[in-house]
């Protein structure tokens, strides 16, 4: 196995210079902290020559005449995304160890990029084009590659432990106590630590000391765990004038989604989740600060099946906006698509015909727009004896042909038609025997009935029920007969018709 580690020295400064390259020629000191306790966290060579050191107070740094800039986490995040993207363009197996440190597994890439030295050189030059000055090291394990990248400038190949023996001890992330102890023993390099007797080291520094020695000897102590690839495609647009019409907004959104879908297609990926965010421009009263929720509008569209269909995504967002309109005109628009592998389904010749999964989401969104979000989907039964215990769930049919075969034959059973909600009725009951039923302007005599069935439960919460049920057959005045399930709510002593057997 071969690993490459990319280390970006003075990452905060480099992130700044990528965005503002004109500052490279000036003495720059980056400060961070809570005002007024702002301290220097990084400085370029010109600033160092003027006497600026890490940890200096902002006022002291200003006194020597350097340009002071506040550290920007946004710039660092953007630079890190750029760094990760570049690393992923070489290997799919990448471990993001720190904001300035990335480890790649380059095993098996020889046929694509050449021998390890060439891969490291290509990574180095590729990052140089992105204005990163990085150290790249190749080694047989990720720990040695990391030490090499931290210790040597430019490209280095660590083929044996002797190559890292000259490097200083602080590269190993020692605690101050451990460093002081080792310095007292006269050990300042990795080679010195590697040459100690492990047993004696264990007695004095414990297990941690042995682990440090393994690192110094070029051995691996932490496993390489490739990150799950979370690729996102992000597009944003700032508008010259605020938009308050859906048609105009759709036009801008369409171009944003088109760019995202093009990127997805370029990477042979699709998306199953799109976040979109608007910066709003609500009417303001002078001197009054508005809460965050009035200034920003965020929504997420989720799809059961990944897609790259711009029209489908746009229509889903339009329907979502119609159902949940933003409260003010829109100034900025941004959309972020979470990329996943597209789903390919091999349809069988004899497989049942099912709705197009891509368009099904659009259909359910349109239906939800018509009848309401909670009125469309597939019904799921709840594990309780409570009457009408079911919820509306997302409609995701089982399209797997393996599950579509008939497992057993089902006999037909008499179905119940529910009255939604249960219908209030006048029911004459004597000694638990229902005698006459009146509802909706018609009435009839009960000619057959079952004995009462008592049901109660959920008394410990607000869903509690306590009722007495009967199945009855009623003959109306016009001679027609019908079968109903009636019940008496014992909390309120009110009679209801639950539904009819049909």
């Amino acid at each position: 196995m071969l690993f490459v580690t990319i280390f970006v020295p003075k990452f905060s400064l480099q992130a700044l210079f990528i965005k503002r390259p004109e500052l490279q020629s000036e003495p720059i000191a980056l400060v961070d902290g809570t005002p007024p306790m702002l301290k220097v966290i990084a400085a370029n060579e010109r600033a160092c020559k003027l006497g600026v050191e890490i940890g200096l107070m902002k006022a002291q740094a200003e006194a020597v005449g350097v340009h002071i800039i506040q550290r920007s986490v946004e710039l660092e995040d953007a630079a890190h995304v750029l760094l990760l993207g570049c690393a992923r363009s070489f290997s799919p197996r990448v471990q993001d160890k720190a904001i300035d440190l990335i480890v790649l597994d380059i095993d098996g890439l020889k046929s694509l990029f050449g021998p390890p030295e060439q891969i490291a050189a290509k990574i180095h030059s590729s990052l140089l084009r992105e204005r990163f000055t990085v150290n790249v090291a190749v080694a047989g394990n990720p720990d040695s590659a990391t030490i090499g990248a931290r210790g040597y400038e430019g490209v280095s190949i660590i083929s044996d432990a002797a190559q890292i023996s000259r490097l200083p001890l602080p590269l190993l992330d020692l605690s101050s106590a451990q460093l002081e102890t080792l310095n007292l023993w006269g050990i300042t390099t990795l080679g010195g630590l590697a040459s100690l007797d492990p047993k004696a080291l264990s007695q004095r520094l414990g297990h941690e000391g042995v682990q440090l020695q393994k690192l110094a000897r070029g051995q691996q102590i932490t496993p390489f765990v490739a990150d799950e690839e979370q690729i996102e495609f992000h597009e944003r647009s700032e508008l010259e004038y605020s938009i308050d019409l859906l048609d105009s907004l759709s036009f801008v959104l369409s171009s944003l989604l088109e760019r995202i879908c093009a990127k997805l297609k370029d990477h042979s990926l699709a998306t199953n989740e799109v976040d979109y965010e608007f910066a709003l421009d609500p009417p303001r009263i002078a001197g009054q600060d508005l809460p965050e929720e009035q200034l920003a509008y965020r929504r997420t569209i989720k799809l059961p099946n990944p897609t790259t269909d711009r029209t489908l995504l746009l229509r889903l967002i339009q329907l979502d906006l119609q159902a949940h309109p933003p409260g003010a005109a829109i100034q900025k628009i941004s959309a972020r698509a979470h990329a996943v592998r597209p789903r390919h389904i091999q349809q069988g010749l004899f497989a049942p015909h099912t709705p197009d999964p891509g368009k099904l989401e659009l259909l359910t969104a349109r239906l939800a727009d018509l009848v309401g979000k909670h009125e469309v989907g597939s019904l799921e039964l709840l594990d309780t004896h409570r009457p009408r215990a079911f919820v509306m769930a997302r409609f995701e049919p089982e399209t797997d042909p393996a599950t579509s075969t008939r497992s057993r034959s089902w006999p037909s059973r008499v179905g119940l038609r529910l009255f939604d909600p249960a219908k209030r009725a006048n029911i004459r009951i004597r000694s638990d025997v229902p005698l006459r039923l009146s509802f909706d302007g018609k009435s009839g005599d009960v000619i057959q009935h079952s004995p009462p069935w008592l049901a109660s439960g959920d008394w410990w919460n607000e869903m509690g029920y306590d009722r007495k049920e009967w199945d009855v057959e009623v003959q109306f005045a016009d001679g027609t007969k019908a079968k109903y399930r009636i019940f008496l709510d014992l909390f309120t002593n009110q009679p209801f018709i639950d539904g009819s057997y049909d």
Partner: protein
Amino acid sequence: MSSQASILRTQIEAVLANRIPGALTFRPAIETETISFGIPELDQQLVGILRGCLTEICGPASSGRTTLMLAAMREVTQRGECCALVDASSAFDPHSGAANGVKLKNLLVVRCAAPHFKLTPVDKALHAVDMIVSHGGFGLIVLDLGDIKPQLAQKIPLHHWYRFRRAVESTNSCLVVIEQHPFAKSCSAQVISLQSCDSEWATARDQIGRPKLLTGIRYVAEVTRSRIALGQRKPPGCVGAQFRIATPWAG
């Protein structure tokens, strides 16, 4: 004369080609697939529900419309197809569906009874059916107007039924309408009228001589209209079947 007629027909068809392809061309009847009900007495007598057609199942309350609808849903969902139920009065009971073997995961339910500032439940149901039919891919689409008063259902404009008929006729879907009286007129390929015959109550009696449980209902189904003949054509009104369905707790 005949050549002039054929030229005229060609010209008319050319003008209408974009809107109605082959407007005056005779289309031979194609053999229609059916969905059985899974009820032996019924399947022996009736042809089942016709694919690519509009079928009306009508009858008064407790006449077996829901039971027949659940049987058709079971047959469709159990073979892996999807089914859509547009429920104008939100009357569907999923427990009854599960007891009948309907695979609820493959059943798209659209409940239309919730109040709307502009649309009535029937309007919403018709819009929903329009969307589902034009989307395609559903083996069975049920429009349940069973609890809608006939006076209201009668006011549904005929063009809705005509459009539904045209939309499903070139597909593999069945469109079934549950209602109290048939309203689609000539747009429906088949009308199945149902009536309740008698109910069965457990004969065992309790201490004071009352029957115990409703154990089953006998229904009578009759095909009162059928436009499509499968095999030998039978005159409408003559095809009927009596069948008994047990209640879920009857075993």
